[in-house]
């Protein structure tokens, strides 16, 4: 065999540390992007807090009334967040009660039952569904889901604008998101674990539900939390279909404005800068922020307790 001469001149000379510019530049960029995202987040929270503080400084506002008041009527200086909050929670709960079971079902089907061919066909479709602009879903709720609900439950029971319709369609919106993220988490579970379970005489369902799902639980919870945050923050569907006016009710067939829906509606008009209405938007925003934060913290606790770490 022909001998070739391997020539690494740099290594021959000395053991001294050499500058590696490429590495340093990349490292710098990565650190910068890390800090950049942290600083923007801090900036947003700061701005939110500052404006919200202005709102709470108003003589007409008091924190207790804000948190427990059941009326949100800015023109008569009633600022109770509960009607907006309950509406947000009701629409989100309806959405999640559709999206979680169906999303998990779809994901388990795709990852454990579908042939590779079916999976490769269905997964992109799911992802496209998740990319449809939400305003389209909003009108779908108003022109399809609402009439459907009204036919089923009666014109008198179901308002034209109602939380149920918005919540259901929001569930349909979130389903592919949860399904897709869950499918990723399930597919990441090593094959060797499935083989172990099949080797013990497990059926497909037992393997899926008692080995694969528990092993993927932290990814699945992440999917659910992202879905919930999406539901709580979702704006267009509720703005179009859930109702345009704060309404303190637990009846899903009634119209009631959500936190986000309210922000959209009043900022659509000509709000003057530094008015009490304007500042109230930030207080509502802060509320949304705390809800998602709480959800995240709770989910982290849950995940920490139930996580099964695999190599």
């Amino acid at each position, binding site marked *: 065999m022909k001998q070739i001469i391997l020539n690494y001149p740099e290594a021959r000379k000395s053991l001294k540390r050499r500058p590696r510019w490429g590495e340093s530049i990349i490292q710098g960029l990565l650190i910068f992007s890390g800090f950049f995202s942290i600083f923007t987040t801090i900036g947003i929270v700061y701005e939110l807090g500052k404006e919200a503080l202005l709102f709470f400084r108003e003589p007409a506002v008091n924190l207790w009334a804000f948190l427990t008041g059941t009326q949100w009527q800015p023109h008569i200086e009633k600022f109770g967040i509960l009607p907006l909050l309950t509406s947000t929670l009701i629409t989100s709960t309806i959405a999640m009660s559709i999206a979680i079971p169906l999303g998990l079902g779809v994901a388990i089907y795709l990852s454990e039952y579908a042939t*590779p061919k079916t999976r490769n066909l269905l997964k992109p479709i799911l992802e496209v569904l998740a990319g449809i602009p939400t305003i389209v879903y909003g009108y779908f709720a108003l022109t399809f889901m609402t009439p459907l609900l009204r036919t089923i439950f009666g014109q008198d029971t179901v308002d034209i604008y109602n939380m149920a319709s918005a919540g259901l369609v929001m569930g349909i919106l979130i389903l592919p998101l949860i399904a897709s993220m869950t499918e990723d988490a399930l597919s990441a579970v090593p094959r060797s674990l499935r*083989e*172990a379970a099949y*080797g013990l005489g*497990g059926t497909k369902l037992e393997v899926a539900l*008692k*080995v694969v799902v528990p092993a993927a639980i932290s990814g699945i919870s992440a999917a659910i939390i992202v879905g919930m945050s999406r539901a709580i923050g979702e704006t267009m569907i509720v703005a179009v279909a859930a109702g345009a006016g704060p309404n303190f009710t637990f009846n899903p067939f009634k119209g009631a404005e959500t936190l986000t829906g309210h922000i959209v509606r009043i900022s659509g008009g000509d709000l003057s800068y530094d008015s009490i209405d304007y500042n109230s938007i930030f207080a509502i925003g802060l509320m949304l922020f705390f809800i998602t934060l709480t959800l995240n913290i709770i989910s982290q606790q849950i995940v920490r307790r139930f996580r*099964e770490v695999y*190599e």
Partner: protein
Amino acid sequence: MVQPQSKTENSHYVLEAKNLEIYYGSFKAVTDVHMNVERNKITAIIGPSGCGKSTLLRAFNRMNELVSDSSIRGEILFQGQDLYASNVDPVVVRHRIGMVFQKPNPFPKSIYENIAWGARIHGYKGKMDELVEYSLRQAALWDEVKDKLNQSGLALSGGQQQRLCIARALAVQPEVILMDEPASALDPIATLKIEELMQELKKNYTIVIVTHNMQQAARASDYTAMMMLSKDGERSGTVIEFDETKHIFTNPKDKRTEDYVTGRFG
């Protein structure tokens, strides 16, 4: 093709492969296999890598069909019954013919739950604590883990993990245990432990073990199947010689077996 001496009547073979061919799609990975597995014996499958040892082993508990387009021709009998007959449930087959894999693969659950998993899915009615202890004792692991049954199975050493996997397999009371190079990821001491364990287990179980370790096959097995690619230039593996282990290692009939077991192969 040499059959083992003790060829009296069919019924005392636990597994019999007849004219067996195994395919992945249109690729014939294993061809023309005839071999019998005797009860309460250790049967080793040896041969160079890629010759189809794992494929053959996984055909014995219908594990191969989890690969979407695999299929077999010919016959495998389990206690005289056609393993691949259309009315045979592969789930039940895998319950009665257990498997231990090359890389230890405990569930990411506690040691206790690893053992209990199989028992639960098969509706075990007895005391779970007893079963867990019994299985771990059988796998010679009890003394090492009895104080930490609630710790993750993954926190154990490689050798302990593999014995946990053996204990887990024993907990569902299989009749046969298939082992695919169970010691290849382990150090020599852990390997020896597994081999000692196999000698204990064969009193109650029938064991088929794939190994690429000649000494291990020679030391630990009663029968040996020597596999090799069937002809030069062909990609299908087959069993070229099957006999009592002592014959395979001291007096092989096939020149290729002799070359392989004496290390003159390739």
